[in-house]
């Protein structure tokens, strides 16, 4: 097992949150809650697990990310900006006319974005196809698929999971963002999805559940998925929608969230304090 540099990964996650906040503040509002809940998993994926090259984003043998909950684009863009795929300042062009950073991920616009998403559910089948393609080409690449819990209401999601298990796509890692909320509020009030671990196991996945806002647990769980085998992997991320900024996390309806100047200053100060504590 590689040594896990917890401090470095935590700092990266804070920086991803900062860039996300920058982007959404520049516009005044955006999909903040669902972007913040995946900041930690993005930090571990891009900070440790995935083989990617910011200088060559289209390298065929890279590992790939499909953020099927495409509305979390701002978190993905912040991750890519922190790694130099795009200039950091460009985050402030989110949703501006002619931007390369639209609210939903677009593979034809943003260097480093591997798949176009935004219509919930569709990224799952795309990811299965990408993983199958890599295997058919003989690449050792893996595909990481982030799916929302609300998104998993879509039947297509489960068609894709059946397919992935049937085709033994062990180079596919599903990361289910179990943040317990969707647009209309709590998932348990909208359409309860039951026990994800039991569901994924029944669908033929190798499944674990972790604290999805804890980089160390994430790193360990992801490291396990390197071993191949004959099952796709599922990691249920027990997360908080809005994680990392307490006031956002405490607001139940934080799917689309206004970030005015006052909020921006206060939230940024909180994140800077987190960074200070980690980096000194």
């Amino acid at each position, binding site marked *: 097992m590689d040594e896990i540099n917890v401090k470095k990964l935590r700092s990266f996650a804070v920086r991803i949150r900062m860039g996300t906040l920058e982007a959404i503040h520049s516009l005044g509002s955006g999909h903040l809650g669902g972007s913040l809940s995946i900041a930690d998993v993005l930090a571990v994926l891009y900070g440790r697990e995935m083989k990617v090259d910011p200088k060559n984003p289209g390298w065929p043998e890279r590992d790939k990310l499909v953020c099927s909950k495409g509305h979390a684009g701002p978190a993905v863009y912040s991750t890519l900006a922190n790694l130099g795929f795009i200039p950091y300042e460009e985050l402030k062009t989110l949703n*501006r006319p002619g931007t390369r950073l*639209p609210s939903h991920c677009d593979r034809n616009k943003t260097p480093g974005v591997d798949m176009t998403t935004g219509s919930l559910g569709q990224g799952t089948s795309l990811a299965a196809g990408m993983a199958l393609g890599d295997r058919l080409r003989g690449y050792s690449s893996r595909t990481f698929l982030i799916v929302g819990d609300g998104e998993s209401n879509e039947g297509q999601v489960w068609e894709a999971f059946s397919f992935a298990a049937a085709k033994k796509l062990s180079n596919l890692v599903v990361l289910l963002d179990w943040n317990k909320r969707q*647009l209309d509020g709590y998932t348990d009030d*909208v*359409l309860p999805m039951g026990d994800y671990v039991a569901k994924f196991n029944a669908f033929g996945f190798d499944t674990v559940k972790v604290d999805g806002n804890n980089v160390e647990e994430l790193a360990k769980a992801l490291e396990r998925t390197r071993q191949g085998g004959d099952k796709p992997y599922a990691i249920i991320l027990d997360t908080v929608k809005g994680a990392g900024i307490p006031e956002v996390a405490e607001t139940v309806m934080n799917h689309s969230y206004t970030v005015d100047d006052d909020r921006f200053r206060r939230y940024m100060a909180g994140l800077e304090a987190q960074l200070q504590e980690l980096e000194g």
Partner: protein
Amino acid sequence: MMKIEYTGAMDPRLCKAVLGETIPKLAEADPDVIYLDADLMNCIGTAKWAAAHPDRAINCGIAEANMVGVACGLASAGFKPIVHTFGPFASRRCYDQLFLSGGYARNSITVIGTDPGVTATMNGGTHMPFEDVALYRAIPGSTVIDATDPNMLESVLRQCVDRPGVKYIRVGRKQYATVYAPGSETPIGKAVTLREGSDAVIFAAGIMVHEAMQAAQALEAEGISAAVVDLFTIKPLDAEAVVSWAQKTGAVVVAENHNRNGGLYDAVTQVLSEECPVPCRCVAVEDEFGEVGPQGYLQKRFGLTAEHIAQQTCAVLERKK
């Protein structure tokens, strides 16, 4: 009663507020009306009422194809479902269910697709349907409406409840220019002449009605007399009105917030090619995908503006000579 009240000013009521008020009212007036949504109740202000009336409002979660199937099943049991989600998910995402479980199986449902075309603004290309009208038009027996303003929205929604077939209303959630006075009835299937004219006629629907009125005003200043006719019912089209205006003016412009393929332009030119071939032009999306941005930017980007309508009117008048 129908009163035209166009001044170019924006209506104080947002269309989402109209939906949030009218859907509960319709359900309260008729025990068979049932409302289904796919995790977007908060986007049209129905969430609070829905929480208090769990038997009248069903949140299906983010599963649009299932929602349409469930609605059609309810329709077979005598219910009158009103279904809502964003336009692309109310059309592309559940099309086979609309077509077979709805149209073919003769289960009548009303579908509201919010934020059509450029009104999807910040949600961008994935959420910006320029093809929903084309899809719905192709379902036999369907009704397809591009709402003009909040007052019309209320009227057509009431009329849809008891109307047979698959009915689709596309409407943006935000502000529209007032065209009709509050309380106006706009009968489905009847074109409304908003402005008389003799040189050309502009047929428009949805947000393009306001643009067409602006264009006609600008053209008047240049000595061109353009009629404006609201063709909010794209199907069944008021063919009589279309033919009569084409005969009267001899030059036609069609303006729509949709791909030029399969929408209002196709519907109008289909009738005219058989009944009254005259020069036609359109202002529509030129077979492109949507993109992200504010509505003003997007209207310019795709040419959905009063200026472009005026240009096309001049172009069609050249042809008429």
